[in-house]
C-alpha cells in the first residue's frame, strides 16, 4: 500500500523486510561462524563444540548449550543476560542435543551494529552458525521483528528509530521444518504452514490482542521468506565448498 510506504523512514512498505546478507565461515578457530546482516543491523555468531565441559554444565543425557551475548561496546548487563536466555531456549528446541551427552556447545554472539531488530538478527546469525558448525538440527529457525505504529499499522523488520517511536514491537521466532522426501515420515498435519506456531515471542510496549494476532500472521509470512533465503544461502555455499574441493 502506497500510504504505508510513506510512513516509514527508509521508504519500505509495511510488510517489506530489509535486504538480508548471510556470510559463513569467517572465523578460522571457530567450528562454525556466520555473520547475518539486515542492512545496518549486523551480528557475528561463532559456534564452538561439541566440546568437553566440566562441572555443573555436564549433563549425562544432553549436550549443554551455552550462549554468550557480547554487546557492541561496554559490559554485559541485564538486557544481555535476558537475550542470552531467550536465544538459548529458542535454539534448544532445534538442536538435537541428545546426540552429544556430557558435551557442550558454545555460541558466542557479537553485536557489530544495531539498527533495530537486533534480537531477530542475532537469532538468525546463531542458526546459520550452527549449520556452519555441522551441529545436527531438527530444523531451522527464522526470526523476525514486527511492530505497531502510532497509526495502528503493522510493520515488519523495524529500524532502531522505529523501535523507539512505535507503540509496541515484538520479536517472533518461527520454526522451519525440513522439506522431507521420505513419504512415510509423519507429516505435521495439524500444523499447516499457514497455521504454524512460533517458538519464541518477546514483546516491548502494549498493543491490542487483534493487533498482536495480525503481527503474528505477518511475522509468519516474513519468517517463511527468511527461512527460504537462509536455505538458499546455505545451499549456495555448499556448492562453492564442493567446487573449491574439486578444483
Amino acid at each position, binding site marked *: 500500500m502506497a500510504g504505508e510506504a510513506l510512513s516509514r523512514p527508509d521508504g519500505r512498505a509495511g510488510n517489506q523486510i530489509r535486504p538480508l546478507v548471510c556470510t559463513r565461515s569467517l572465523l578460522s578457530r571457530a567450528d562454525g561462524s556466520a555473520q547475518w546482516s539486515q542492512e545496518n543491523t549486523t551480528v557475528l555468531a561463532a559456534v564452538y563444540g561439541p566440546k568437553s565441559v566440566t562441572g555443573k554444565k555436564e549433563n549425562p543425557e544432553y549436550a549443554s548449550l551455552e550462549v554468550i551475548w557480547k554487546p557492541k561496546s561496554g559490559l554485559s548487563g541485564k538486557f544481555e*543476560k535476558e537475550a542470552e*536466555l*531467550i536465544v538459548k531456549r529458542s535454539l*534448544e528446541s532445534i538442536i538435537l542435543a541428545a546426540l552429544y551427552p556430557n558435551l557442550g556447545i558454545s555460541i558466542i554472539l557479537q553485536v557489530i551494529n544495531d539498527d533495530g531488530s537486533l534480537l531477530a538478527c542475532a537469532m538468525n546469525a546463531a542458526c546459520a552458525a550452527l549449520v556452519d558448525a555441522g551441529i545436527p538440527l531438527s530444523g531451522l529457525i527464522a526470526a523476525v521483528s514486527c511492530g505497531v505504529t502510532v497509526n495502528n499499522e503493522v510493520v515488519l523488520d523495524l529500524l532502531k528509530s522505529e523501535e523507539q517511536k512505535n507503540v509496541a514491537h515484538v520479536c517472533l521466532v518461527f520454526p522451519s521444518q525440513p522439506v522431507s522426501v521420505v513419504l512415510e515420515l509423519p507429516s505435521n498435519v495439524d500444523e499447516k504452514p499457514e497455521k504454524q506456531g512460533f*517458538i*519464541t515471542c518477546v514483546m516491548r510496549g502494549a498493543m491490542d*490482542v487483534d493487533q*498482536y494476532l495480525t503481527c*503474528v500472521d505477518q511475522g509468519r509470512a516474513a519468517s517463511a521468506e527468511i527461512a527460504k533465503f537462509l536455505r538458499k544461502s546455505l545451499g549456495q555455499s555448499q556448492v562453492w565448498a564442493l567446487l573449491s574441493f574439486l578444483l
Partner: protein
Amino acid sequence: MEVEAFKRLYPLPFYERYLDSSVRPDGRPLGRARPTSVSLGAVSTADGSALVKIGNTTMLAGVKLEVMVPSQETPDQGSITVDFQMPPICSPLVRPGRPVEAASVISEQLSNVLTSSELVNLSELCIAPGKAAWMAYLDVYCLDADGSLLDTALLASVAALAHLQLPAVSVSEEGRVYPVSSSTSGDVSMEGAETSIKVKGNSISPRRRLKLGAAPFALTCMVHKKHLLADPCAEEETLLQCSITITMNQMGRLVSFYKPGGAVPATTAIVKECISLARRRAREVQQILKEALEDHIESPSLMQTD
C-alpha cells in the same frame, strides 16, 4: 509408597496421568491459579510496600523515595528504578554470591512490563519542574520461589506502587526540598484542590497518593502436549519446560507476550486460549488488589508512617 516411587522414577508420566484427567496433583483444575493474597504496608520504613502470595510463592515489594534533580531532557519527570532480588532463602537453586540467571531475566522483564504498561506517569513524580523530582526505588524480594515468579513480582510491584504515598514537601526557590511535618501537610491537603501552594516563597506539595494508569497483571501458563496449565508451581515449571507469560492490563490490552523458546510452538489456538485465561485472571487479581486497597484505607491507623 509405590505411588511415591513412581513419581520419583518417572516424574513426567506421573504428571501426564493427572493431566489426562484434567486435574493437577495439588487438586487444581488446569486453568485455575493458586489462592492469591495481597497485604499492603508490610514494611513500615518504606514509602510504599506490599507482601504478595500466590500459592507458596511469596514476594515482598517496597518503594523508597529520594529527591533528585531531573535530567535536562526531561525536566518535569521523576524516575523509577526496578530491582529484583532472589536471595538464597527463596530456593535451593540459589547460592550466595553470584546472582542467578533467573533473577536478572525477571528483573529485566519486570521493568519492561512496568514501562510498557505506562502504569506510572513519570510526570506525577515531579516536585518542581527542572529543580526537583522523586526518584523511586522499587525493590522486589523473593522470599519463596515456587513458580510463576514474574506474575507474583509484578503483582507485588503494582500493589506497592498503589500503596505508595508521596510525602508532603516544600520546595524553596533554589529547588531545595524540605519535608513538611504531618500537621501542616494535613492543613494544606485539607485546604485546596491546588496541588502546590506558595507559603513564604516556598511552594508546598501536599502528601498524596500516586495516580496510576491501567494496572498490568501477568499469568504464566505451561504448555505440555495439548494441555495448558495456568499458574505453575516450581515443580511444574522444571518438569514441563515450555512456558508462556502473558501480561494484560485491566482494559484488556496486551502488555507483554513472553515465550522464551520451549519444545511446543504456540499456535494461534494456544495463543487465544492463553489470552482468555490471562484476561480472566487479570480481572480476578484486580478484584483482590481492589479489596486489599479498600481494607487498607478503611483502617487508617496503618497509614500513619514517618
